[in-house]
């Protein structure tokens, strides 16, 4: 599995996943509640640049993330420019882009297993109401290990069909994929039962 994580040793990488996610949530909420002014936009963009610099992600990564959001920016900005004052339109768009870039910074600096652990810990309170945080963690981790297995089935089916010279169609691809995958699910369920998961 190729996660979006970038290796690094900056302060944002070292910050524990739980507090980092909480901090992001607070900043995102604050940004979305502020009035759409150029001051707000300037502060938001300065924060984004500072976060990427401190995290050691650098200007290139920031540029790459911006490039990924280019259509989003066009889709949001153009209609707003027609119906709203330009300052408000630009500030509104910049606000959403800043929040998306900050969310990307969290994603880029946090390993997925660390986030799963933080999720399990964060769900600790649900035990009182019959929740099972360990099970949530298990399901997430199991899915991550299962994705390459299903992707392998998909490759086998494509290669088998290509070898027979069959034309690739969605139905003739997905039906065998579902059959192979759901058989695998039954094996997986039995394996879990054999290991005494509850």
């Amino acid at each position, binding site marked *: 599995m*190729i*996660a*979006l*994580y970038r290796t690094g040793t900056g302060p944002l990488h070292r910050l524990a996943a739980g507090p980092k*996610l909480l901090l*992001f949530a607070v900043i995102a909420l604050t940004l979305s509640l502020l009035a759409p002014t150029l001051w707000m936009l300037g502060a938001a963009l300065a924060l984004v640049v500072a976060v990427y610099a401190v995290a050691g992600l650098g200007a290139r990564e920031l540029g790459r993330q911006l490039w*990924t959001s280019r259509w*989003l920016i066009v*889709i*949001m900005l153009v*209609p*707003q420019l027609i*119906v*709203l004052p330009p300052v408000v*339109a630009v500030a*509104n768009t910049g606000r*959403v882009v800043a*929040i*998306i*870039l900050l*969310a*990307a910074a*969290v*994603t*880029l600096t946090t390993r*997925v297993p660390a*986030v*799963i652990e933080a*999720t399990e810990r964060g769900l600790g309170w649900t035990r009182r109401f*019959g929740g099972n945080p360990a099970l949530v963690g298990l*399901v*997430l981790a*199991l*899915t*991550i290990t*299962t*994705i390459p*297995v*299903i*992707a392998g089935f*998909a490759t086998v089916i494509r290669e088998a069909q290509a070898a027979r010279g069959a034309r*690739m*169609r*969605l*139905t003739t691809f*997905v*039906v065998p*994929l*579902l*059959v192979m*995958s*759901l*058989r695998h*699910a*039954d094996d*997986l*369920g*039995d394996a*879990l039962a054999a290991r005494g998961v*509850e």
Partner: protein
Amino acid sequence: MTTRRPAALDLRDLARIVVFAAIIAVLGLAPGIPVFGSVPITSQTLGVMLAGTVLGAWRGAAAVLVVEVLVALGLPLLAGPRGGAGVFVGPSAGYLIGWIVGAFVIGAIARAGSRRPVWWRTAIACVVGGILVIYAIGIPVVSAVTHLPLATAAISSLAFVPGDLLKVVIATLITQALWRAYPAAFRRGRA
């Protein structure tokens, strides 16, 4: 057969949720497959529809939820490939919530009454849950995030309706074919 114990976890159900989440992820990672000639479509929402028709309401919605939690945690599992917490604060956030509710509604309609999938009920389920429900949740969020009037946001989403109708047809064909090839896939657990 599993013994009926309320609140007991059915591990086969759990495994099906895990595997279907992986299927939805793989369908999103696969490049667009040409259907009916040369129009490529991404098959991720097809995966959402199939989760409902094959797994039923609760398990189908759970499978979609698992994919989205993994996306939020930082895996690029959405078509594109896109991922990370950012997609849940952008305009597409409503559609992603709509997928979960949509899979539930599809399962509830498609699996109501009988165990055997009936083609017209599957098709209706996919139109209602896979198109109407998803757009009903997605469009207001697009409107709120982009500050566009609701009507403008609705009109700009119309471009995706033909592709979605095509996916309804394909999801129905696949569901019927799967019933003939592997009826055990539709095994009803709890829920």
